[in-house]
């Protein structure tokens, strides 16, 4: 289910769908001179390609008919000259096209990327990266192909069609009319065919997409499949989908076989009729022999422009759809805009003042009336059951989300008034599911601080107990992530932690960052973190008692609001819900306790 329907469209866009494509024209502005040149050379090219058959006509009707050897040479040389000019014009036009066509594509892609980076988490939560990618690649190529080639061919073909038809009509109008009439069924069938062909191609694509999903699952879930021995079950699912693709592809093959066979029938039948009527006319003296030869050559020249009209019109339609899809993203206004205030010397005094948050359309708020103060240098652990809103709460600080009620302040500034760069320099987060990019370890670590020195880097690695990076094949230059070396969950968490520590934030947010570490490493990391958190303000989302101990105080988050704040042992003693969450042995039955102690 593409989110196209979720994103509000501007009403104008849907009614005037060509509008989006038209809006791309500004990207062509730098190339106006080139474009004029391209169009001119295209038009002259058409003239040259029409001239060749006409010269043939002259040769047959002139020198050959009159046995005039002297007139042959100039005409022959003219033909050669026109041939060279035509070829050169093609070369110049194509060469000149490179810059505007690719410039347009590159500029739009750059802008799209920039825009997407500015759009908030909320947007990215609704849109899968695959959908965005198809806009940056497939849709953009469709637009490029149409604006770069399709549009030119559309106009050129129509021009050529008109010129040649006029020529033919002029030469011998009955045959001209015949040729003109033969174009009608071709254009009509092509148009119909293209529409149906696009529809069935989309269907094949969709079915291939479903098949790809199954392939993806079978590859990513291979352990689960093997653990349960479900090879045949998975294969059957795959086979069903593969058969679907097969059936649709065959229907597509049949459809295009019919069309392409038909496409050649009409011109050949027309040719036969032209020959019949033309020969009769030559016999009757209404047409010269040379004209008949030229006629047949010119007529064959028309086949492609006519047949491709349908194709190009379909291409135009696709380009418009693509432009709409692209503009849908480009027109989305970033809901999180940077403020203007800066903090010269951030102290890291964090306050949640009556903060509420709800997703649009949800009937229950995720957070409501959250009040919490974290003084500079203090560390608070956030404890709560799954779904209590812990991650949402932490996302409000660096403005990955904005509260729908109340405000979050740092040193007295509403975070929404702060410059985003300032804010996100002050706050750093290590996420539970760490994101590593397909880049070197160093680049991954320096994400938040490109200017960090080697010593600082080494220090952060030490703190996060991520010394394993030195043992990687190329040390800190080793590429990790999807396209590089794969790391274990614990290793990735430690890198994410090192990344957050390296950016030396005044406020450090740890969103259950230690969950994938084994007990011994966790203890070492915690020890090191204690030093880091001594200077910084900290928010630690915790599931385990050991993590809670990093904090000076604990806040219990239940049903979207903070119900208790206090010391770990106080809450443990006084609040039953807290005990239920953190005390591992809270209500185990007596038998097992007896067995252990």
């Amino acid at each position, binding site marked *: 289910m593409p989110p196209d329907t979720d994103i509000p469209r501007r009403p104008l866009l849907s009614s005037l769908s060509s509008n989006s494509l038209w809006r791309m024209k500004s990207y062509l502005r730098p190339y106006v001179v080139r474009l004029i040149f391209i169009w001119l050379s295209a038009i002259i090219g058409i003239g040259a390609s029409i001239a060749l058959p006409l010269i043939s006509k002259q040769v*047959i009707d002139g020198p*050959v008919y009159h*046995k005039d050897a002297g007139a*042959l040479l100039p*005409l022959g040389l003219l*033909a*050669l000259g*026109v*041939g*060279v000019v*035509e070829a*050169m014009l093609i*070369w110049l036009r194509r*060469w000149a096209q490179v810059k505007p066509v690719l410039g347009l594509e*590159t500029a739009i892609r*750059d802008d799209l*990327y920039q825009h997407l*980076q*500015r759009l908030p988490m909320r947007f990215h939560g609704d849109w*899968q990266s*695959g959908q965005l*990618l198809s806009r940056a690649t497939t849709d953009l190529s469709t637009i490029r192909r149409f604006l770069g080639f399709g549009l030119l061919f559309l106009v050129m073909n129509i021009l050529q069609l008109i010129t040649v038809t006029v020529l033919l009509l002029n030469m011998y109008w009955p045959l001209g009319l015949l040729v003109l009439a033969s174009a009608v069924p071709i254009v009509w069938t092509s148009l119909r065919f293209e529409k149906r062909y696009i529809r069935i191609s989309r269907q094949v694509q969709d079915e291939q997409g479903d098949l790809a999903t199954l392939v*993806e699952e*079978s*590859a990513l879930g291979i*352990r689960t*499949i093997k*653990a*349960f021995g479900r090879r045949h079950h998975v294969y059957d699912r795959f086979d069903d989908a*593969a058969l679907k693709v*097969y059936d649709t*592809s065959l229907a597509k*093959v049949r459809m295009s*076989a019919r069309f392409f*066979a038909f496409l*050649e*029938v009409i011109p050949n*039948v027309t040719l036969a009729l032209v*020959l*019949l009527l033309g*020969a009769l006319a030559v*016999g009757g003296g209404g047409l010269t022999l040379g004209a*008949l030869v030229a006629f*047949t050559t010119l007529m064959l020249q028309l086949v492609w422009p006519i047949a491709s009209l349908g194709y190009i019109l379909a291409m135009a339609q696709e380009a418009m759809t693509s432009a709409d899809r692209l503009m849908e993203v480009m027109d989305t206004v970033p809901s999180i805009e940077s403020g203007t205030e800066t903090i010269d010397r951030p102290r890291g005094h964090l306050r949640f003042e009556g903060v509420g948050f709800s997703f649009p359309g949800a009937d229950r708020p995720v957070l409501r009336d959250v009040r919490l103060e974290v003084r500079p240098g203090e560390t608070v652990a956030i404890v709560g059951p*799954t779904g209590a809103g812990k991650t949402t709460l932490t996302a409000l600080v*660096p403005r990955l989300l904005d509260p729908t009620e109340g405000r979050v302040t740092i040193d007295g500034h509403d975070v929404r008034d702060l410059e985003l760069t300032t804010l996100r320099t002050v*706050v*750093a987060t290590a996420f539970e599911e760490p994101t590593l*990019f397909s880049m070197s370890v*160093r*680049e991954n670590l320096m*994400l938040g601080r490109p200017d960090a020195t080697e010593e600082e880097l080494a220090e952060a690695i030490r703190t996060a107990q991520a010394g394993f990076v030195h043992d990687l094949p190329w040390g800190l230059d*080793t*590429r990790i992530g*999807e*396209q590089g070396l794969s790391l274990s969950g614990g290793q990735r968490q430690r890198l994410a932690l090192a990344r957050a520590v390296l*950016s030396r934030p005044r406020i450090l947010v740890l969103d259950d960052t230690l969950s994938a570490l084994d*007990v011994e490493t966790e203890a070492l990391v915690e020890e090191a973190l204690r030093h880091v958190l001594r200077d910084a303000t900290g928010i630690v989302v915790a599931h*385990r008692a050991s993590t809670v101990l990093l904090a000076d105080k604990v806040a219990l988050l239940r049903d979207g609001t903070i119900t208790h704040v206090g010391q770990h042992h106080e809450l443990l003693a006084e609040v039953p819900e807290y005990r239920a969450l*953190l005390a591992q042995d809270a209500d185990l039955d007596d038998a097992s306790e007896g067995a252990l102690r």
Partner: protein
Amino acid sequence: MSTTTGSSRASWRGVASEDQDELPEKVSVLLRDRSRRLLGALLRPYRKQIALLVATIVVSSAAGLSIPFLVSIGIDEGIPPLARGDGPAVLLTVVGVILFSTLVQAVTRQAFLNMSGRIGQNTLLELRRRVFDHFQRLSLSFHEKYTSGRVISRLTSDIESIAELLQSGFDALVRALLTMVGTAVLLLVLDAHLGLMALVPLPLLLLFTRWFRRQSAIVYRRTRETVALVIVHFVESMTGIRAVQAFRREPRNQEIFEQLNDDYRDANAGGMKLGATFMTGIRLVGNLTVGGVLLYGGYLALHDEVKVGVLAAFLLYLRQFYEPMQEVSQFYNTLQSASAALEKLSGVLEEEPSVPEPRDPQPLPQGRARGRIRFEHVRFAYVEEMPILPDLDLTVPAGQTVALVGSTGAGKTTLAKLISRFYDPTEGRVLLDGVDLRTLDEPTLRGAVVMVTQENFLFSGTVADNIRFGRPGASDREVREAAKAIGAHEFVTNLPDGYDTEVGKRGGRMSAGQRQLIAFARAFLADPAVLILDEATSSLDVPSERLVQRALRTILADRTALIIAHRLSTVEIADRVLVMDRGEIVEDGPPDRLIASAGRFAGLHQAWLDSLSS
């Protein structure tokens, strides 16, 4: 791979070992042996159809080629009788033959397209089936090395490039080649002198085409490489947007993206310019030949050495002689990527599973597994010099619950993987109820041993579908019972559509803890005699973990269980604890006795208790 892309790239992108997918610089169009074998095996069932196909296309091309020739006859033989007043009999005959040829061409062409399409689609389907099935058969050790990304691209983009070849390239190529050869022959037959003249530029063009193919292979490769980098960077930026924004990565990302995008543009520009030059070259030679034919042919016609109709036919034929050359060349890239794809696929198909199915499977003694496990002098090593398990002996009686404890790298997970036969021991044997695992067939083994890990994969579909994965035939009631038994029923019924709630792609709509509970229910429904839990509770929060542990007491009561957990809370339900260190069992006994003995486990346990009560 990264050498062409500049030094500034290498610095951020980092170094990685060569991508094993990349074939040597010159991908030979001549398929290698194994690709050829695969192709042969795939096409063998269609030998007769292919012969028929060849016949059809020859007839179709001949019919198509005959038409300009017939036009020339019409002009030369049909018009003079008219001029003499002998009536249009000859002309009408010729026109009739043209119409007949048209019909023949249309019918045979449609038949050819249908037949070749069908053979192509059948081959694709067979290839998809074979490769998919083979991947599923290959052992986990293969998948761990090969990575899921490559499996996916084998089954998607590689198959699609072969499909592309079959769809767009093949028909065009065959027709273009036949047209060219047929036209050349016809030209020579029509008039040897003029024909030779028209064919003079041919060798030149062949050389030109060869040059173009070489260049285009380089350009094509560069385009693919550069676009791959653009895509990777784009997708990673978008999937990791949270980290990008939280760490103010946007400007640097933009810089990198624009650089990659520019590289892609330059590669594309190279391709477009190359194409422009090639197309111009073909057109130039075509036009010059037309001019030459006009001059020489005109001269001959002037002296009545060639008829005007023949000259007209030449002009018609020459048009269709040089144009196909372009198609053949454009086809080359498709052919190249398809043959590279076939090469990779044939490579995969020749991989042997390192954990093969037994040829002669043995039954379990009582027909149904009881769950007694025995390791006999088991040695296991990924790399020969560094054995993970040097020499392990262990017996677990049926029904016992064993907890495995030890630091990372002690060999706990390896031991678990050997019991579930994800790997085979390098030496020694692993026995289930006295039968070597290597002699059990897959259904027997997987019915008896199930492993639940921390990474529990959910397939797209509903919650019920995912639980039922443990036993596909299970009824709705059994699915519910399984969920109830492990304590997942409550959260499932609270979901919007209960058991029919879609879990989303890879279970994305469920939290880690919820995914884990579903995985537990799935394993419980499978009802194995031996259940292995490898860090299976680590992503649960404490209340859920407690819930699962309570459930485990009943679930594990009548089966053998092996539990690996960093957190010792799990150990409470064990009958026996094994402490492992560097592949050896260093402590072995009931938990209370080990705690009392003041050994390694006692120390770990005390530390754990401290962490709870502090």
